[in-house]
């Protein structure tokens, strides 16, 4: 099964099998639009150990999906441009690889699951075709072998009657089954890193749980690293090891999952946690973060969160931007007043 594609892969100069499967350093992405430059990602950094689950949490428009697309190299260019930083796969900067080699990293080493499986699957080809083409194009398999492998994959993601369903079209599947097909597609070539961009957002709650359980199981079996992009704090708590909270294109807090739930060190994270409905506080008004996220063409100076922040002082409203403070050995927060925020709890 390992054909020349893999041989070429290993031939990427500088590839270090002991390096981390994914490391993002100071990534900058901007969108050049008619209304000005939208700074979607402004210096995002995080890393990923083998088998680790990293959650990237944030509201819509905070740059989390753009980060994922930049890692995959599937940004719409133009208008989107990666303007700085590094994306390292096992020590190799993907941004410096020629497109032909970068293409081989996609799906083979780093794969992605998209949010809305109905629109992310091509409506005019059968599920079997869309799965099988990975084996045919990347592994040089025949149509027949590719189809057999597709059926195995559908079995793997627990789609009943895989042998029949492989010949059906995406619109003939239910929402949960479609997301399973997406997962099968992402896992087809045994990637080391899986990026799941809001994998359960379009699904109802019971199906969400099934899909997350399936993802966790498959991840464990394969010792795969997972980047889970979501705005759902509930999903994060169950599966993530570490969390990066993003706001206006920056990681504003980074911590192991339990620490962040116990004592958030950034007012935004704190606001997010307080806005989760809780049964023990029934009858009280649900607290929400005041105001709206900033327009990306015009991000506030200093701390981007300052107009909505109850801790904000003058120092937050002026450049330079807030540095990352080391809260403890394993966590950082971009807030001048992290001690107050944390102690306030």
């Amino acid at each position, binding site marked *: 099964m390992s054909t020349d594609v893999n041989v070429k892969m290993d031939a990427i100069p500088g590839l270090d099998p002991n390096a981390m499967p994914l490391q993002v350093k100071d990534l900058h992405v901007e969108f050049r639009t008619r209304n000005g430059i939208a700074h979607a990602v402004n210096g995002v950094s995080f890393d990923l150990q083998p088998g680790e689950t990293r959650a990237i949490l944030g509201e819509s428009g905070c740059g989390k999906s753009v980060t994922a697309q930049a890692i995959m190299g599937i940004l719409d260019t133009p208008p989107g441009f990666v303007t700085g930083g590094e994306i390292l796969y096992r020590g190799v900067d993907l941004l410096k690889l020629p497109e032909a080699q970068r293409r081989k990293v996609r799906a083979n080493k780093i794969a992605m699951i998209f949010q809305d499986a109905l629109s992310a699957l091509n409506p*005019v080809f059968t599920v079997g075709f869309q799965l099988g083409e990975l084996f045919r194009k990347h592994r040089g398999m025949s149509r027949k072998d590719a189809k057999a492998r597709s059926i195995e994959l559908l079995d793997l993601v627990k789609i009943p009657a895989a042998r029949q369903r492989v010949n059906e079209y995406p*619109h003939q599947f239910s929402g949960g089954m479609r997301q399973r097909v997406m997962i099968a597609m992402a896992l087809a070539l045994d990637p080391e890193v899986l990026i799941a961009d809001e994998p359960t957002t379009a699904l109802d709650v019971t199906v969400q749980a099934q899909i997350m359980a399936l993802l966790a199981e498959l991840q464990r079996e394969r010792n795969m690293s997972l980047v889970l992009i979501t705005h759902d704090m509930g999903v994060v708590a169950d599966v993530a090891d570490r969390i990066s909270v993003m706001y206006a294109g920056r990681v504003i807090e980074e911590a192991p999952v339990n620490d962040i739930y116990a004592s958030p060190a950034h007012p935004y994270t704190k606001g997010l946690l307080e806005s989760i409905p809780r049964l023990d506080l029934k009858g009280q008004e649900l607290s929400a973060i005041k105001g709206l996220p900033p327009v990306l063409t015009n991000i506030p100076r200093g701390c981007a969160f300052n107009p909505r922040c109850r801790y904000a002082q003058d120092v937050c409203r002026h450049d330079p931007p807030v540095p990352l403070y080391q809260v403890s050995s394993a966590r950082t927060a971009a807030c001048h007043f992290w001690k107050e925020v944390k102690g306030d709890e």
Partner: protein
Amino acid sequence: MGRYVIRRLLQFIPTVLGTMFLLHYITSLAIQFSGNPVRAIFGDRTPPPALLAAVTERLGYGDPCLDQKGNPCFGLFLDRMQKIFSLNPDFGVNLRLRPVTELVSDALPYTLKLLVIAILFQSIVGIAAGVWAGLRSGSFADNLVKISTVFLISVPIFVLGLVVREFVGVKFGNVLRGQEWIPEVISRGVFSPGFKPDYPLASLIIPGMVLGAVSLATTARLTRTSIMENLRADYVRTARAKGLANKRVIGVHTLRNSLIPVITFIGVDIGSSMAGAVVTETIFNVPGIGRLVTLAARTGESSVVIGVVTMLVLVVLIANLLVDILYAVLDPRIRYE
């Protein structure tokens, strides 16, 4: 699918009968208001009334209802239908006593060839130009296609036809015809000012291109927007994320979806191409259905008009049915019950 096709074929019956009655009524009105078409045979001479009456009767214009303005002539219509839908279909004759079926079978091949050339030209060049422009939105290629298609769409087909005949067929053709080394099939066939019986296919190429030109522009624009729209689709992003080569992302995942509206347009457009064929055939002197019906309408030969137009209606209906079937093949979400 089989049931769907049968149902569609059954729907042909009322459509065709309705068209035939409408044609019958219009041609009858024309005779009622402008007089007996048979007189045209005699030119300037005034025929003896007995002779005129005999010839009129023989050619099928003897029914007294044709003298009463506004009379829909149901009796005459039923007579016609009876003759047409008999074991031995008889569509009547023209003023020179040639059976309409024979006229149609002589003329139809030319029109079909013309249409095939037009549709091929329109699909191949139109889709290619549309894809070219759509993939490079905002570039020189895109603007070139946008501007040239606006130009094509705004020029009426008879103007385009006359201009092409004058400049390509006559002027440019004359230059070519002066060159010894150019094969005659090019200089006298392709670049002739009109249809040449010696080069029955070559001399249809330019008329076919004129006929396809306007639809080509629409096809190109439709393909362009469709490609641009689909390039932003989520499933195209998925295809890229799967590490597929750009050629495959465009050629397989984008193109098939983009062509669905284009195919629909080309199918519907076959009907208006038929109308365009009437103009093009007249300009380029092609002995096809279009010219036949133009001449017949001018002389008031109602049997010819009814026979020919019914034929055209059938061609359009069948083409539309084929397109609907093709549509279901292209887009699996469409299922006909």
